[in-house]
């Protein structure tokens, strides 16, 4: 391994350590009270102390998030293919989807609670609602940007629209789809935690609300750390899947 790639490997960890060290230093130097901004060391101590509860609640959140995300993948892909397939469907549905996406999901949670009661269902649904839009848009974009000349080549051979979708459209949309998963998974966390903090008996969102109510500031931050960690972990999983599935689309040496 040469020097440059070594730096490349350690740079994310190094930047994290630097940020945490700076944080710790600033709190000490400016003598910031712990109930405003706890030191990272205090936060880690809190994580260790409450480890069983944190594990339980974050697993709950992870599962709800993944259910919502799974729904978003299925429906997002289906709707994206539909919207990309037909200009009429696109024209009809797109404004509706944009309008829906513009609605703050926090305003939807009370309705979901009204319908499904407090618990995992509204959390999973909020995760789904917030994360499926980028999937739809990306899949539809992938389909809509087929080179018209290539379409001509195939049409002149008598290819049906379905043929063109199968042979060109769908494979072409895959990098867009897998790329959108990275955005969607982080949004899914936002949705589920949002719903949990508004109305739930479980999950890391509820956990943080309770910590706040009891004024246990380090625990609130502990919840944030755990969420950040889960977000990164799932993002990396999606990035790995993306690379595995559509290696052909990542051949540029631009960012090396």
């Amino acid at each position, binding site marked *: 391994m040469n020097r440059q790639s070594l730096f490349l490997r350690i740079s994310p960890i190094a930047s994290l350590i630097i940020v945490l060290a700076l944080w710790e230093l600033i709190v000490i130097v400016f003598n910031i009270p712990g109930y405003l901004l706890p030191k990272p060391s205090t936060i880690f101590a809190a994580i260790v102390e409450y480890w069983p509860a944190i594990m339980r609640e974050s697993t709950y959140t992870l599962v709800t998030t993944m259910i919502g995300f799974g729904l978003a993948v299925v429906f997002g892909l289906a709707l994206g293919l539909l919207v990309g397939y037909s200009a009429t469907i696109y024209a009809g549905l797109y404004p509706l989807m944009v309008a829906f996406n513009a609605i703050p999901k926090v305003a939807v949670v009370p309705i979901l609670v009204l319908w499904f009661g407090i618990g995992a269902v509204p959390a999973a649904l909020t995760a789904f609602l917030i994360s499926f839009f980028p999937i739809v848009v990306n899949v539809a974009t992938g389909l809509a940007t087929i080179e018209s000349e290539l379409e001509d*080549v195939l*049409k*002149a*051979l*008598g290819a049906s629209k379905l043929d063109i979708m199968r*042979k*060109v459209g769908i494979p072409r949309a895959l990098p867009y789809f897998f790329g959108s998963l990275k955005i969607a998974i982080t949004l899914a966390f936002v949705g589920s935690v949002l719903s949990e903090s508004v109305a739930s008996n479980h999950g890391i969102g509820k956990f943080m609300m309770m910590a706040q109510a009891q004024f246990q500031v380090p625990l609130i931050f502990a919840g944030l750390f755990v969420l950040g960690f889960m977000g990164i972990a799932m993002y990396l999983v999606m990035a790995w899947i993306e690379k595995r599935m559509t290696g*052909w*689309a990542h051949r540029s040496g631009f960012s090396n």
Partner: protein
Amino acid sequence: MQPFIEFDGVDHGYGAEGPLAVQDLHVSIGEGEFAAVVGPSGCGKSTFMKLTTGLQFPRAGTITVAGERVTKPVRMAGMAFQAPNLLPWRTTMENILLPLEIVPPHRQQFRAKKQEYRERAEALLARVGLEGAGEKHPWELSGGMQMRAALCRALIHQPKLLMLDEPFGALDAFTREELWCVIRDLHAETGVTVILVTHDLREAVFLADRVFAMSARPGRILAERRIELERPRDLELTYTAEFQSLVHELREHIVTARK
């Protein structure tokens, strides 16, 4: 004998009310003939291609290909454009086989006859100077090699009609001349009817039996010139006075039309 391709008084424009892209085209091309269409950019050359292959239908007049009036995509055409348009997720071989996955009867036999088709593709690859490149992905090939692969894709289903839309426009001069020779030989061997759309007059004169010069929009046929140069033609021919004067004559037509 009935011509292979016949345009009779064809007008066409895009949209119901849009301006005409081509006007009053009368063209007839015999089977096995090599025709070139030249003209300034925007003269409706591509419209001409779309009309011939049944991707567009004329507003007025009739088009007949192989004795049948064109009312749907003609299916027998192979096409190649300036951009090779190979699919990056497929190997070169899989790209070349793509038309066989679409055109009947190959479509139904594709799995059963895959080996035979692959051999056919290998032979074509060798024919255009790409032996053994089949397993590479298109993005591992140079622009000229990609164009050769695109030609193989256009020919794999043994079309009776080959449509080339400025196929060598993006290539350097040497590669272009090499590919002229490839096309020349493929035409001589297979007897396929070729329509070449180009703005390169030397290319048109070197390759074609007949050159149609088109005017600026709306495109009309200004002149039709039979190229009597003997075949097989050698690249040296392009430096002879006879060749030069043909190019010059065609150029005159187009320059006049632009004024």
